[in-house]
């Protein structure tokens, strides 16, 4: 105990100077402020993080935002604000995140304290381990504690003992027996050398003492280490002490294997975790010059620092798999295997989020599915990456013309497509379309007021009635199916144009958590494709969807429909949910 206290005191002498050194490098509060405002602003900026960089202070960053921040700091200094007030201002806007050194309180305190705690713990650990090692050696000092054992060693070492039984090889006991045999052999060799006059008297005594002490330790260990069950009998017949029998054999001999397995399993788990996390966080190279971490660590976009080399070039600079993915997507699209195409283009966009071709095809697929707004967004993304991407111009132009009836927009888009197209059949086609658009827009000028009013109709204000013609009625549930009602299900009212066979519905209305009987009304605000007129003959069906996903029909969904088409504007279009899927 006393010994241990002494050691702790020694530890203090080692750790204290270290701590003093560590704490002396802590950034202490800014004590003296230079009178120069510029220098003061620089100093404050150096303590603030640049919001758009990785691990750069606003003072070091060349980014525009950091420059603007410096301007604001200077301005506030001129207004007479203190450094703390200015920092508090930035904290109020960006949170404590903006401080390069987090405040030493709350969770932030952990950041300040933990490294030192870990460092100290590490040093203590190392010292303890070292103490244990040296302690082991210390115990090997010659001790005359057990003269009986020493006598036995002298006796046994003199005769050459047989090698330990083979069946025990690998067990801790067998290792000890081997060690014992080695020590005995060393002792014999030492005697031989001494007799041959190769060693001085003192050296001989020293070495002999060391070897004998080691042998004593080994013998003691052998006595406490159990033999394997199979080996017990021969051991006993050899006249070994029988203490080992008493010791729990299985537990001790099973331990190393058990520990190894646990260690191995843990290493495996660790490896898998690191592997999975790394693959998740590192994106593929955009090009050979690109760093794999890219924006993740340095704040630069895909393409590394070369990201600004022009949006139009982005389509060309990409990873090795990108062309393959695009080709795969194109092939699937041409075969109209849309889910496959979507997956390929999504993968391509994961590699290069600005890939114009992938965006364009996504747009075409969306347009085909009736999602005009999503499609337009996809085309715009493609065009913002490459403003002259022909397929995107074509898709956008046609969608604006046919889907949105935006003749001016369609004309402008197709016009810019024509400018970049080589002469040929395709160009003639587009010119024809342009003529059609011109005629259509003329036609609209004469009698379009109604359509325009509908397209630009204000949205449903809370409490206000939606405008235009409505279909109204009540939805009820077949009493036989009442038990199958799911409180969380979502009701979809789906309207198709009468006579249409599949394709996108004309209008869909979604009602969360419906309560039956449910009066409903459905008007032009539910039309899927903006600009499509909500009129004429339609068919109406309803589905109570368990998972709330309009695209999937699953077991447990309840459906029902109105027999035969109805005219938009009809009242009492009552529907019964009468089928379970």
């Amino acid at each position, binding site marked *: 105990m006393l010994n241990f206290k002494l050691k702790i005191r020694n530890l203090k002498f080692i750790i204290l100077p270290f701590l003093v050194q560590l704490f002396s490098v802590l950034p202490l509060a800014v004590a003296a402020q230079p009178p120069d405002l510029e220098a003061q602003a620089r100093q404050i900026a150096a303590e603030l993080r640049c919001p758009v960089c*990785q691990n750069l202070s606003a003072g070091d960053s060349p980014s525009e935002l950091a420059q603007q921040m410096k301007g604001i700091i200077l301005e506030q200094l001129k207004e007479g604000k203190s450094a703390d007030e200015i920092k508090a201002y930035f904290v109020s806007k*960006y*949170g404590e995140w903006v401080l390069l050194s987090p405040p030493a309180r709350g969770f932030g305190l952990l950041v300040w304290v933990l490294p030192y705690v870990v460092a100290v713990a590490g040093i203590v650990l190392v010292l303890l381990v070292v103490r244990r090692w040296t302690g082991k050696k210390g115990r090997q000092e010659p001790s005359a504690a057990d003269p009986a054992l020493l006598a036995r060693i002298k006796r046994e070492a003199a005769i050459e003992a047989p090698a330990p039984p083979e069946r025990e090889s690998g067990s801790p006991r067998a290792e000890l027996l081997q060690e014992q045999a080695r020590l005995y052999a060393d002792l014999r060799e030492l005697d031989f050398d001494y007799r041959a006059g190769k060693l001085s008297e003192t050296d001989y005594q020293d070495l002999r003492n060391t070897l004998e002490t080691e042998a004593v330790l080994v013998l003691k260990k052998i006595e406490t280490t159990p033999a394997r069950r199979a080996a017990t009998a021969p051991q006993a017949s050899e006249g070994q002490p029988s203490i080992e029998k008493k010791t729990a054999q299985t537990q001790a001999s099973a331990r190393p294997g058990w520990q190894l397995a646990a260690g191995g399993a843990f290493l495996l788990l660790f490896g898998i975790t690191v592997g999975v996390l790394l693959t998740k966080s590192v994106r593929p190279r955009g090009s050979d010059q690109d760093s794999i971490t890219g924006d993740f660590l340095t704040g630069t976009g895909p393409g590394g620092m070369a990201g600004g080399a022009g949006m139009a070039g982005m389509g060309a600079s990409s990873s090795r798999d990108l062309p393959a993915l695009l080709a795969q997507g194109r092939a699937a699209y041409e075969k109209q295997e849309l889910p496959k195409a979507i997956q390929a283009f999504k993968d391509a966009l994961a590699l290069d989020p600005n890939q114009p071709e992938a965006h364009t095809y996504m747009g075409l697929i969306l347009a085909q599915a009736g999602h005009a707004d999503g499609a337009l967004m996809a085309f715009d993304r493609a065009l913002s990456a490459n403003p002259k991407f022909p397929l995107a111009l074509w898709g956008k132009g046609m969608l604006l013309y046919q889907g949105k009836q935006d003749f001016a927009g369609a004309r402008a888009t197709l016009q810019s497509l024509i400018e970049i197209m080589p002469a040929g059949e395709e160009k003639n086609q587009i010119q024809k379309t342009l003529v059609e658009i011109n005629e259509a827009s003329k036609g609209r000028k004469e009698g379009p007021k109604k359509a325009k009013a509908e397209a630009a109709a*204000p949205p449903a204000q809370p409490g206000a009635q939606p405008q235009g013609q409505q279909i109204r009625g009540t939805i009820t549930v077949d009493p036989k199916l009442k038990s199958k009602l799911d409180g969380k299900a979502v009701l979809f009212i789906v309207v198709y144009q009468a006579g249409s066979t599949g394709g996108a519905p004309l209008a869909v209305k979604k009602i969360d958590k419906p309560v039956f009987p449910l009066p409903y009304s459905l008007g032009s605000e539910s039309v899927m494709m903006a600009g499509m007129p909500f009129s004429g003959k339609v068919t109406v069906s309803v589905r109570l969807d368990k998972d709330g996903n309009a695209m999937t029909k699953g077991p447990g969904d309840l459906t029902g429909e109105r027999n035969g088409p109805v005219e938009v504007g009809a009242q009492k279009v009552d529907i019964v949910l009468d089928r379970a899927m």
Partner: protein
Amino acid sequence: MAWRRLVITLAVLLPLIGILAYGFMRDPRYINSPLIGQQAAPFTVTLFDGKKLSLDDLRGKTVFLNFWASWCPPCRAEARDLEAAWQRVKNSDVVFLGVDIQDTEEDARAYLREFDVTYPNGRDLTGKVAVDYGVWGIPETFFIDPQGRITYKHVGSLGTPLITAKLEEARAGIVSAKEGKGSYQTVR
């Protein structure tokens, strides 16, 4: 003894793996805003038509404040939706206000022409407004209720349903618990 060692090893290593996992999972660029639920910082911008507009003048109205730049692809992607949303609400007590940051006047005007933007837009020349709103990734949109409080913030493109829903909430003064995130472009 052996199980104790295992427990100690796990107790040391599992938190380390946890920290590692947390570090890998989070978006290192993402900055959580402390502004939601707070009073919106007052500012005045000069609009592209030369008039001046101050946020204080809009008290009593629901304000849709959108930070954008002509060089930002997600801004372009949402521009059409924003204008469409504006067309639907312009006759009500909602005001859309666009603030162009880190941009040239020429590019910004071309952008507004390209997307036929009709709601008021101004330029933040010094970056003061952007910093006042903690802007770091655009498009960045703030919904401000009639009392001048920020009810919702969205980093990245907004979809039409979200615009409608969050305008309704702002009108009613309902503060969202969390900010939203879409596809965004880090500012320069």
